[in-house]
């Protein structure tokens, strides 16, 4: 084992340790949410996950970005087989380890990796053009200014560099194989790098080619380790969470909102003729429960997982009737705010301990009442999301807090609610007139 193998092992172990530490923090943050039981309907959940996450069924509703995304997605999944080989080579100092026992099939693999790498590279270039030159509207909305835009560009440029390095590595290897260089066994098929990249470096000496091959090999694998550790800080984390997030997404009809159990008990008591109105209230057990959602810790863990799964594509906002007509509400911003606030709460716990409060909350400091009241609860955002995110449930839970905790609502809504209370209709009409339609024309 040479010194380079030891360096490789140290980098790999360091990268994995750092990554798992960050994953643990994210899992801890998600678990700050309220518990809900989503262990039901396993078969249906698997089916939905296969369709929507693995099969990308919602992505292709926008054919251009959908198909380009599938190229990158398949490229990512398949090229990871190559990464496995690179890791083995890195640890043991072998070269193209899989070639030794895969035989001709190895050539088929490399052949397909080459084409996929080119596909990923081109798709990412087109994505960059869409974001920065064509300036597709959904990528330029208010909430995307600053870091979110940079984040997206970093990801795309990183992928282009990684694929570029991969193809250059293959090209130099191809040339070295042609020159019968030691250690560079005859293995692989290089339809892309052999034609596109090799001519650029052809004619270099064996030693120079080895330097190119080694440099791109190291750049590629260190790049992958760096990218892995970038994920937890980025919207790109969706590549991991998309799958569980779709699995745990809502299976009920979209129009069915949760019936709050805490309210159910009180209402049942009011309808119970046996209930003693003068009875002393039962001893409260633990902290009194808050109605609705004020801060991220009032949300369910699924809402919080939604926030970490969001890749800020903006399909939700693009479909939102309120946003289309210029209102402040953007379902994507609701998810980005939720994640930002959750990260803040997480950091507070890390620095100040579990019981620290910073006096801020998701509702108010991040999401305004105006945004919440603009929602028509039409479910367009939920329908549009390719990874099973439900921004609507957060919006409604926050309205619950505004109404039931703070008695805050637009005045017309307050009158509507008191009409229902007084005469069983949202308008001020007498119950006795309910059948008048029968005798009118």
């Amino acid at each position, binding site marked *: 084992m040479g010194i380079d193998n030891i360096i490789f092992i140290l980098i790999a172990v360091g990268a994995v340790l750092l990554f798992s530490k960050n994953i643990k923090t994210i899992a801890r943050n998600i678990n700050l949410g309220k518990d809900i039981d989503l262990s039901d309907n396993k078969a249906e959940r698997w089916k939905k996950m296969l369709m929507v996450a693995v099969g990308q069924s919602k992505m292709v*509703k926008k054919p251009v970005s959908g198909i380009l995304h599938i190229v990158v997605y398949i490229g990512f999944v398949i090229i990871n087989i190559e990464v496995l080989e690179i890791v083995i080579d890195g640890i043991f100092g072998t070269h193209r380890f899989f070639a030794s026992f895969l035989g001709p099939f190895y050539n088929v693999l490399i052949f397909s990796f080459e084409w996929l790498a080119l596909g990923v590279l081109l798709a990412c270039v087109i994505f960059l053009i869409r974001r920065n030159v064509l300036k597709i509207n959904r990528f330029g909305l208010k909430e995307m200014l600053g870091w979110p835009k940079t984040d997206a560009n970093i990801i795309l440029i990183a992928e282009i560099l990684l694929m570029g390095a991969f193809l250059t590595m293959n090209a130099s290897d191809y040339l070295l194989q042609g020159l019968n260089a030691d250690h560079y066994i005859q293995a692989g098929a290089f339809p892309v790098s052999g034609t596109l990249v090799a001519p650029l470096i052809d004619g270099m000496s064996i030693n120079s080619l080895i330097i190119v091959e080694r440099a791109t090999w190291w750049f590629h694998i260190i790049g992958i380790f760096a990218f892995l550790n970038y994920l937890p800080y980025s919207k790109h984390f969706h590549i991991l969470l998309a799958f569980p997030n779709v699995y745990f997404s809502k299976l*009920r*009809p979209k*129009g*069915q*909102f949760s*019936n*709050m159990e805490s*309210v*159910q008990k*009180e*209402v*049942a008591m009011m309808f119970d003729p046996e209930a003693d109105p003068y009875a002393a209230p039962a001893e409260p057990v633990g902290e009194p429960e808050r*109605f*609705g959602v004020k801060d991220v810790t009032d949300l369910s863990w699924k809402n919080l997982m939604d926030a970490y799964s969001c890749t800020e594509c903006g399909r939700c906002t693009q479909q939102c*009737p*309120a946003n*289309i*007509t*210029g*209102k402040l*509400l953007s379902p994507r911003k609701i998810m980005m705010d939720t994640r930002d606030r959750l990260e803040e709460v997480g950091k507070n716990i890390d620095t100040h301990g579990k019981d620290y409060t910073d006096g801020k909350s998701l509702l108010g400091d991040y999401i305004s009442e*105006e945004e919440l*009241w*603009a*929602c*028509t*609860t*039409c*479910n*367009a955002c*939920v*329908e549009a999301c390719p990874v099973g995110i439900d921004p609507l449930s957060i919006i*409604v839970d926050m*309205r*619950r*807090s505004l*109404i*039931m905790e703070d008695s805050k*609502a*637009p005045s*017309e*809504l307050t*009158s*509507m*609610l008191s009409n*229902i*209370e007084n005469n*069983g*209709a*949202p308008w001020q*009409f007498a119950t006795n*007139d*309910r*059948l008048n*339609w*029968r*005798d*009118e*024309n």
Partner: protein
Amino acid sequence: MKDSIIMSNNGMKVNTMAKMMAKGETADVLFWVGCAGSFDDRAKKITRAFVKILNHVGINFAVLGTEESCTGDPAKRAGNEFLFQMQAMGNIQVLNGYEVKKIVTTCPHCFNTLKNEYPSLGGEYEVMHHTQFLQQLINEGKLTVEGGVFKGKKITFHDPCYLGRANDVYEAPRALVEKLDAELVEMKRCKSKGLCCGAGGAQMFKEAEPGNKEINVERTEEAIETKADIVAVGCPFCMTMMTDGVKTKNKEEDLKVFDLSELIAQANDL
């Protein structure tokens, strides 16, 4: 005719659950009229059109009349879960008291609430939207639609959010348009991508937040683009929003707004 049936001034036969129970009779289906259908002048016409069809087919139905109360939908969407559950429990007591098994309603909001949100509170019924009910009557051969009136007309259908996306009912209303012998033209955003009229989530009862356009105008423009003669709706709130939108665009002459039950009643000259 059974003597317990009340003839209204305009020749409709509409029974209440209370009257039927007093006579020891039961209705096959309860027609849940809803608040808009009971009080809003435009929506009341939808209610009457649907009743005329029910009478025409001879459906043994009844309404709750003064015993009906808001399902609680707008309260729930506005965030007042307490008021919603109070309404729900009250309604469930009434419905269960009459041993109601099957409900049909012309309002997708009532439909969604009764169908999806009442069961876990103790109210389990078979709930249908009136477009589903009408499609079933047609499929069973109980209702035939005379196509003549609408032959050659273009009709576009505006999906109500609480029927379409909320409950995945897209085909029943479209099947009705086809029965009218009219040409069904789709708006750019339709079915699961349909654009809301702007009234859902208790927006019906308040001014919109500041923006650069009203949602109903955006939707109406899309309907106008189809060059349809009629925009068919299946919801009393969509009816209000689309009618207002057409007025705003001064297109009252070119684009009429009707509920599907009204179109069927017109086709059959009821």
